[in-house]
Structure formats: structure tokens, C-alpha cells
């Protein structure tokens, strides 16, 4: 088991490298939004590399099909969670550190995307009366 198998080990090492840089980026990037770049992109390719290496190690249809499914769901779910985290943070008012423009805010639509009418009312004072809360306060 000590021999170096290039086809198997290089993808695993590359994957491990990308996961490591994801961890470093997660610590070093300045704010939540930038950190999402590190976590969503690097983790995806990192795990892809590790999966490919493991698949080549087993080299069986059963293992490969399962790994392909895992990888597919990884590609489907990682961006979704990044999207939701970014959106939730932004709508909750976590200020991004920006050097460029914030066109979302500039277009004035951040509040409209918020699907929680109660909080909107709190923010805008008594201006909005036509938004009755769907559930009564328990």
C-alpha cells in the first residue's frame, strides 16, 4: 500500500490542496461575502478531486456511480447554500466591505426582497399599514 499511484494520488492531493486553500481563504478573506467565494468554489473542486481519486482507487461501476451522484448533489447544493447565506446576511443588514458599487442597495430593492412583513414594518416605522401579518402573535 506504500506505492505511489499517480492516477489515484494526484487528484486526491490536488483536492486536498484546494480544501486547504479553502480553509485558509475562509480565515483570511475580509468579510462573510468574500469568504463565501472561498468556501463555495474551492470546496467543490477540492471534494471533486478527492472523489475522482477515490473512484479511480476502487475502479468499479458501483463506486463510480455513487461518487458521481454525490458529486452531482455537491454541485447542486453548495451554490444554493452560498446563495441563501449571502442573501440572508445581506437582508439582515450585515454590511459588506466593498471597494466597488453596491448596485443592489443602489437600486433600492433590498427591502422589497425581504419576505418578512413584520420586520419591514419595524424598519420603516408606521408607514406601512396594508401589510397584516399572516399569523397572529402567539
Amino acid at each position, binding site marked *: 500500500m506504500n506505492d505511489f499511484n499517480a492516477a489515484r494520488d494526484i487528484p486526491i492531493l490536488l483536492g486536498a*490542496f*484546494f480544501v486547504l*486553500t*479553502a480553509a*485558509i*481563504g475562509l480565515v*483570511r*478573506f*475580509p*468579510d462573510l*461575502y*468574500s469568504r*463565501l*467565494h*472561498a468556501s*463555495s*468554489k*474551492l470546496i*467543490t*473542486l*477540492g471534494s471533486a478531486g478527492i472523489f475522482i481519486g477515490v473512484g479511480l482507487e476502487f475502479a468499479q*461501476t458501483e463506486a463510480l*456511480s455513487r461518487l458521481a451522484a454525490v458529486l452531482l448533489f455537491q*454541485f*447542486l447544493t*453548495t*451554490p*444554493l447554500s*452560498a*446563495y441563501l447565506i*449571502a*442573501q440572508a446576511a*445581506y437582508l439582515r443588514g450585515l454590511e*459588506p*466591505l*466593498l*471597494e*466597488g*458599487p*453596491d*448596485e*443592489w*442597495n443602489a*437600486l433600492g*430593492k*433590498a427591502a*422589497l*426582497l425581504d419576505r418578512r412583513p413584520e420586520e419591514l414594518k419595524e424598519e420603516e416605522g408606521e408607514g406601512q399599514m396594508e401589510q397584516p401579518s399572516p399569523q397572529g402573535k402567539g
Partner: protein
Amino acid sequence: MRGISLNILLAIVWTLFVGEFSLRELVIGMLLGFAILSVFPLSLGTGGYVRRTLAAVRFALFFARELTAANVQVALWALRPHPPLHPMIIAYPLRLSGDNAQTVLAATITLMPGSVAMGFNPERNVLYAHVIGARSPRAARESLEKVENALLPLYGQSASQTDPVETSA
């Protein structure tokens, strides 16, 4: 729908011919079936299916290349002493229409160079993305446009639709 069902049917027929039902034979059957469908697109009425599948393959290759590029870039930023991040939030007017297509676009740009999708305005058909590493909002929008251009043929849409924001701005 007709195309994919015919393709699966042909794959099953192939496994019957081979006499061995396995994932491998099924995949071979899918490929052979696809070859048949693309040779006779008119008589079988599967031209659209063939075109879309080819667009999907082309998109998968584009995706793999861009994903690798994005990762190398972000990895370098993570390791450099002073990474040249220029974080900004840009509004991107979508030309793609349809829930599925837009969801795929949002997911794809999150995995691609320097952008994370973070919001969507259905009224104005605008996707908001957090972008790092782009020099200007225009450059960032151009890189998103590249992704959208690769996705458009996949959904059988053309790039000729007008952008609501672009025309009003």
C-alpha cells in the same frame, strides 16, 4: 421529452441485445441510441433533443474549464499576502427566462470566477451577485455574460431578447 424517452428505450433495447443489464451496458446503449437519434433527427423528430444534448455537453466542458480556472484563481488569492480583491455587488439583467434556467445560471456563477449569486429580483429580472477580483462592474458583468451565453442554447433560447434594465438605464 420524446427525444429522451426514445434514447432510454434504445438503451434498454441494447441491454436486451447484449443480454446483460448493467450500468455499463446502459451507458453504452445511451450513447449508441444518441448516435442513432442524431443520424435520423428528422424522421424521429428528435432534432431539438440532439441539439440540446450537444449544448449540454459543450456547457459541461465550459463549466469544467471555468471551475478549474476559478479555483486556481481563488486559491492564489487565499495564499497571496495582499490579494487584489475588489468586492462589489453588481446587478445583472438576465436574458435567460424561466425558473429552471435562472436557477442553473445562479448556481453556475457561484461556482465560477469571482462571483457569488446573492439575490434575485423577479420583477426586474435582475440577478444580484457579489463579485471579487473584477476590475470594474462592467468587467464583472461581461464574465457573467459569458456564462449566460453558454447556457442560452441549452434552453433553446436566443440572445436577441432585450434587457429591461439596459434599455431603461
